[in-house]
């Protein structure tokens, strides 16, 4: 795991590097856009944690450039600008997520893990929560590396939840994931599928848990 921290602040920069290195391993820190471009040319990075405002400019242009790299690093933007339009600009340019300053160290690590997980999902088709792993290419779920045999609709449900693990998946997007255009959606059918899926996961010894939030949606939690 290789992490690049782009942060000009003399306190925050080294702290970010040390904190991320302790939690995820191998981090470098640069302070300007220029240095960042050089670093990115020298070696590939799995994760880039970056500030928006740098001494030599707005980092949005760099985000767009990094999207072209192969393998593409996961990008987590740290921003002191909480204007929703500014956040949207960073995400549109290709950032995977943003974190508003100031933040708690645990939140930083959790977000970093989440973007890495999503990037891994994009590139390798694999995502995991606790001892549950889902391979989207093979469309197979594993608990402790043991494949889990699931009916079609339960598999689709699990995939939708795993793709957005740690976040709330709204009820209607689950409906869309499980049922096709022509399928007639039965109310409560999702709940029935979910309760069977929960039981199967529990029996297989899965430590990840599907939390139901009435009226809102579902969430795959550790």
């Amino acid at each position, binding site marked *: 795991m290789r992490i690049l921290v782009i942060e000009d*602040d003399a*306190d*925050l920069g080294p*702290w*970010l590097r040390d*904190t991320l290195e302790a939690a995820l391993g191998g981090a470098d820190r640069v302070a300007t856009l220029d240095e960042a471009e050089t670093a990115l040319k020298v070696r590939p990075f799995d994760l880039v944690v970056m500030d928006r*405002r740098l001494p030599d400019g707005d980092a949005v242009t760099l985000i767009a450039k990094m999207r072209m790299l192969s393998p593409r690093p996961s990008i987590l933007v740290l921003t*002191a*600008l*909480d*204007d*929703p339009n*500014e956040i949207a600009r960073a995400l549109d340019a290709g950032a995977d997520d943003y974190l*508003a*300053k*100031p*933040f*708690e*160290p645990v939140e930083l690590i959790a977000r970093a893990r989440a973007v890495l997980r999503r990037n891994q999902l994009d590139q390798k088709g694999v995502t995991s929560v606790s001892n549950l792993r889902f391979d989207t290419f093979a469309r197979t779920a594993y608990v402790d590396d043991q494949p889990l045999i699931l009916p079609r609709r339960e598999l689709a449900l699990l995939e939708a939840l795993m793709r957005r693990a*740690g*976040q*709330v998946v*709204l009820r209607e997007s689950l409906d869309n994931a499980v049922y096709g255009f022509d399928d007639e959606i039965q109310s409560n059918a999702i709940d029935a599928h979910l309760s069977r899926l929960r039981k199967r996961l529990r029996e297989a010894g899965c430590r990840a848990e599907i*939390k139901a*939030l*009435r*009226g*809102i*949606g579902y*969430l795959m*939690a550790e």
Partner: protein
Amino acid sequence: MRMLLKRSIASSAAMLLGGLISALLCCLFVGFIAFYGDDGDVAQSDVATEIKRSVRLDEAGRPLLTPTGRLIAFQRQFPQLWYVVSTPRGSLSYGAVPPRVRGGLGLPDASEARSAYDASGPEMQLLGSTRAEDDPAMLIALGGAVYTSTEVVLSLLREPDIPSTLLAAVMAIIILTTILVVPALIVRPVRRAAAAAEEIGAREGARLPVDRQPSELKPLALAFNRALDRIDAATAEQRRFLSNAAHELRTPLTRLRTRLERVEDREIKAELVGELQSLSATVTMLLQLARLTSQPTEMQPIDLVSVVREATAREVPTALASGVDIELRGEGPVMVSGSAQAIGIGLSNLVRNAIQHGGSGGRVVVEVAASRRVSVIDFGPGIGTAYGGRTVMEPFARGKQDSAGTGLGLAIVAQVAALHGAGLSMEETPGGGTTVTLSFPQ
């Protein structure tokens, strides 16, 4: 006049035109009365008509007079009036018939109407007129009747003929059209400019078209556009200020947070981190409040249920971390006109407040009713009676002094409500706790 203009340019223009036309008509009327005198022919023509109505012939062909009411009135009105009605078989007369007429004015020969004037004096005076009525066998000679100016007008009004009625009707139509159409034409560009200004609304960068304005309105449009320039510049400046302020406040807070990691004493560290977190929350909410109050909000039709669901979903991790169950009730769509972003910010603050202050109840319910009401219900200790009412909705007011939170959350919600013309109320949840309700207008 000034008061009239304040009411409406069109109605004052109409009243002004109406007044001017009336004055003009009055002048014409007075002039007509003053200068149009009657030298006798108008009055005598009227009297002759009346005489004709009063006369019939007996079996022998002699004229017989049965005066009509009007003829009697004429006789009373004109003391000098005389007349002679003659037919080949006989004649009758009234009043002091001048000797010359009596002596024969060549009456029997007269076959058409004519007048006789006395030209001996300095002013010509109608001596009498001879009128051949439809019956050429009957001649009427008369004199001594002269209308005053007023009587001429009254006589015209009394027996309107077709040409004068038509003329009056055409005049009335022209006057009415002038009064109705001219003010509307004058006001049209003003109305068009007002509609264009209305359309600009809260859109940034939009301006009134100046080229198409009439020259009188051009300075107004230019001044209006200059004012918009200033507002846009101020908004941009405000935005720049806010993002600079955000940067300048958050960067040191972040730096401070990283330094706190080096504090060895766990108890002191936890306390300092808590203080820093509440300071950070204050900064975040102040910036949100500033953004909501300073920037124009674009209103669109939105589904309250889905906006509220997304906002609630964002707060789920906080709820789970605090061990609070969160639930959304309500079937969509419930359409309102509003800003999804602003409502989302308001809802996030309400839900966070409920988790923070009412989380001890273990449950927070968000409810969207078809009547466009959104309620956030907690089952905690409640806000207490001392702080009921509006005060908690003002910036920096808190339910309890020792409680966490900045007291800005509800001020933000109140601002969001004000932006949407929505009602905001706070009441005790039955069985304990607080219910905050946003009621959007119908």
